[in-house]
């Protein structure tokens, strides 16, 4: 151990004979045309990658946007539903169920527009005049004339749409605005047409 320790420095201390350096033909080589220096080459690569990534992101965004058309061939969200006098007090008006998926219901105070989409799983309930209730054929959810649920699997009442009077005196229903009872939105004056 000690012998090796003492012996080691003597061997390592002696510098190995320097190997003859190969003479590089540095000076003799002709200078290459338009050499990109190493440092700026990296920044060019960064720029190239950034541009590539940006173009890929733009392409992905545009392709996603492709799935959302600018024009929809669906019924417009607002429609005129005739004059208030055409609906009698206590009546559930089914004229707009097929085309606009809306029931107009008139009670003693006025008219409200009920969505015909069942709040359970999205089927269309039927208005049963004899039983005075909306009944969904899919899973049996039942709603009172007001739209409030009372039977079946549905967790919440039917939704109401914004309703108002147009300039010509007709009822104007706006389906892009909806009012949910459980959120207290039926108190909003836009959800009810007072007569």
């Amino acid at each position, binding site marked *: 151990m000690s012998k090796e320790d003492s012996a080691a420095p003597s061997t390592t201390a002696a510098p190995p004979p320097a190997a003859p350096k190969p003479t590089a033909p540095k000076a003799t080589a002709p200078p290459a045309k338009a050499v990109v220096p190493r440092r700026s080459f990296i920044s060019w690569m960064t720029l190239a990658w950034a541009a590539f990534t940006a173009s890929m992101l733009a392409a992905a965004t545009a392709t996603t946007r492709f799935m*959302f*058309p600018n024009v*929809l061939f*669906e019924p417009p969200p607002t429609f005129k539903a005739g004059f208030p006098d055409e609906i009698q007090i206590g009546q559930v008006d089914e004229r707009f169920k097929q085309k606009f998926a809306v029931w107009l219901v008139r009670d003693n105070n006025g008219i409200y527009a009920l969505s015909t989409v069942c709040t359970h799983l999205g*089927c269309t309930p039927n208005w049963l005049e004899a039983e005075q209730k909306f009944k969904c054929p*899919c899973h049996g959810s039942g709603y009172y004339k007001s739209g409030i649920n009372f039977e079946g699997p549905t967790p919440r009442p039917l939704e109401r749409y914004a309703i108002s009077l147009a300039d010509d005196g007709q009822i104007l229903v706006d389906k892009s605005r909806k009012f949910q009872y459980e959120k207290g939105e039926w108190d909003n004056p836009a959800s009810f047409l007072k007569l």
Partner: protein
Amino acid sequence: MANITDRLKETLKALSPAKVGEYIQDSQIYRSIFRVGVPDSDRKRMLVMLGSVFLHLHPVKVRKSGIRMRYTWCMGGITFFLFLVLTFTGLLLMFYYRPTLEYAYVDIRDLREQVPLGIMREIHRWGAHAMVIAVWLHMYRVFMTGSYKPPREFNWNVGVILLVLTLLLSFTGYLLPWDQLAIWAITVGSNMARATPFAGHEGPGSALLKLGDIPLVNNASDARFALLGGRFVGEGALLRFYVLHCVGLPLVAGFLMAIHFWRIRRDGGISGPL
């Protein structure tokens, strides 16, 4: 005269099945297709497996337990067979079916009543049901034999994606007859996409994405809309589901199936009994 009959006999002798077979096997066309020749040795059998684009997905050697029906139930193989049946019958159905509101329902009816072999659509339908069942049983077998464990965990995950794709194929195909059952089933099913976090207009977090007072995620810009191509199940939904059912999903499923089969080989073949 005798000379001619003798020559005829000679020619016929030369045309014996064995000779013809030899001639065909020596021809350049045959040799260009089957390069290895008759696989009568282990080395040749291996070369056949490695040299064929179809067979190379398959392991060169299969354990005895791997072909035992009581171990594998052959459910993976049956699933693949059903996929091929569905691709073929589906292709035939596409010659008659038009995915528009005007024609979809009547085309399905006419496929049964006006086209010869009216059970073609039923074969497709029952095959689809059978495939879903076979996929589940395959998954059950793989789970019960512990074949999801390393080194096969990657292939298990590929299989899970294939399961989802099978269910999506089933779901998209369900809309195409365009009857009341189909429309309402897809209405109910696609309503789930409303609740997608951030991307669904009734999902958690979507209310946070606002530009001033205007919600960015509404019923005309959310995940459900992208799926249906409209605010409700209509013409756009029928066309989108048709394209996904006939092209998009089978393409992805076929790609993943190739990986799935190749991976069986790479992960050491079908797992053995524990």
